């Protein structure tokens, strides 16, 4: 099975509201997938279900062939599944270096080391410095993360997401609130990481330029269901999709 992640008949409801309704979705390795859809379509819920923030009410989730439906989040991270957040979620009081160091220490099984200084974790620190170089934050390594600009915090968020060395990484609106210049930087970075690390990314985005320029495959969601999926060219031509979602932006 070459599918990295499989959601099979997955549903999630919050009270009366059905956030995700019987969704079946396969994410193969090495394909940059984008999930789009109007607000409330269930995109972020899909991420939360896949990464273990919520348990689904029905359905099975498999990662690399193994069922992970009821595994905790940290167990899934260890198996190679990570994410970034739509609303900025970093460690504001820690330094930039420490922010990325945590997932690296975690992957190396070093977070329980209690009596030797954290600076002594040289291999981990070296790895973090490489990641900071990749995301362009190396010169701010000792700044408190909370003091970074919004754009740099977005980059840091990305750095924390890739630091566990995931095989599959969800990016929840990686370009939200960025200036066009910063957005270009983030896009370029995602492309580069995809090419160099062979990490499979799944991005959830509102920005159609980002979606169509970046992804190999687009999944359109509406009201908790998958409306259509296919390569960008096909989705662009899909009548139903244009009606519910893309209409204004593409016919304008």
């Amino acid at each position: 099975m070459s599918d990295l992640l499989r959601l099979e008949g997955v549903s999630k409801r919050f009270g009366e509201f059905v956030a995700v309704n019987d969704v079946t979705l396969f994410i193969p390795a090495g394909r940059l997938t984008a999930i789009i859809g109007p607000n409330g379509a269930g995109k972020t819920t899909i991420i939360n279900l896949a990464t273990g923030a919520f348990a689904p009410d029905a359905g099975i989730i498999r990662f690399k062939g193994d069922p992970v439906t009821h595994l905790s989040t940290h167990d899934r991270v260890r198996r190679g599944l990570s994410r970034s957040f739509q609303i900025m979620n970093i460690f504001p009081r820690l330094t930039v270096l420490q922010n990325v160091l945590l997932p690296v220490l975690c992957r190396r099984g070093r977070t329980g080391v209690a009596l030797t200084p954290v600076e002594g974790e040289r291999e981990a620190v070296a790895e973090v410095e490489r990641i900071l170089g990749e995301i362009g934050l190396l010169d701010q390594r000792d700044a408190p993360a909370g003091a970074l600009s919004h754009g740099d915090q977005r980059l840091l968020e990305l750095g924390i997401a890739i630091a566990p060395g995931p095989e599959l990484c969800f990016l929840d609106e990686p370009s939200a609130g960025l200036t066009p210049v910063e957005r270009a930087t983030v896009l370029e970075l995602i492309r580069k990481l995809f090419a160099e690390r062979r990490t499979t990314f799944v991005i959830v985005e509102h920005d159609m330029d980002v979606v169509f320029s970046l992804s190999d495959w687009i999944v359109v969601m509406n009201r908790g269901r998958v409306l259509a999926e296919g390569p960008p060219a096909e989705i662009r031509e899909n009548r139903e999709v244009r009606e519910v979602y893309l209409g204004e932006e593409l016919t304008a």
Partner: protein
Amino acid sequence: MGVRPSRRLAVFLAVLVASLFLFPLVARSYSLYLAMQILILSVFSLGFNLLFGYAGLLSFGQAGFFAVGAYGCAKILLAVPNLFLGLVGGIVAAGIVAFLLGILCVRHTRIYFSMLTLAFGMMIFSIALKWRDFTGGDDGLVGIPRAPLEIPGLLTISVANLEQYYYVVLVVSLLSVLGMYRLVHSPLGLTLQAIRDSESRAEFAGVPVRNYRLVAFTIAGLYAGVAGALLAPLENTITPPIAHWSASAEPVMATLLGGIHVFGGPIVGAFLFFMIKDIIVRFTQYWLIWLGAIVVILVMGFRGGVLSILVERLMPWRPTRPMVTRRKA
């Protein structure tokens, strides 16, 4: 060229430790007693602040574990006159109780966590008060001996008088401070701070958050146990009020006074706590009102506590607070 600041700090600490060792040469017994109380509260507060300042969990029940340490040590000393066994027994007992109650407490955070710790603390207080056969009820345990410190085959030290016992308290406290210092600067310390900053982010970085909270809770309980165990032979008498929730407020006050985001904050705070108390008590028996007022002023006016302000003044290049604080979504 001046002396490097880290060296200045090292010199200051060396002088401080040396004067603590020489203190009994000049001090009268009241000052010695006060110094021991400060050391004990320092250890107690350092443990509390591992939970509060580092892991972001505000416990109102630490006095319960303090009491387990004190009663545990007292019971052992009343049965077997060996201070080493008493201290170790009291500390281990506090650690076990903290671990078991922690399993329940760390399932919650914020106010729910605080309420749970308050409730468990009061349960321990009730046990101390009501289980007469074991704890002596409201009479407490009396006649706790300052038995010799005896490690079989290694050493036997008499600690009967106050000066001798002072050295026990001092050495155990310094070791505890050192241990905590290493802990908060270790990968484990970083992990706890990350959990404090963002629980969900830590979980998504691969950290089993609850397990780490339990580790912090247990260590805080152990430190409360160390403090409690040291108190029993000092006072010779242990009564239930040490387990009362109002006693849990002492490490909270001390830590807020000194500063929650600086390592030495709880130690400076413990010193200030007893100094303020000692001075105010001479003028009025309502010293708690004045102490409360001072804490209010500090919390509102100097948010980081006394030591943070000092550190920011003396070492402006080492911010103790980030310039931007962000609320968790």
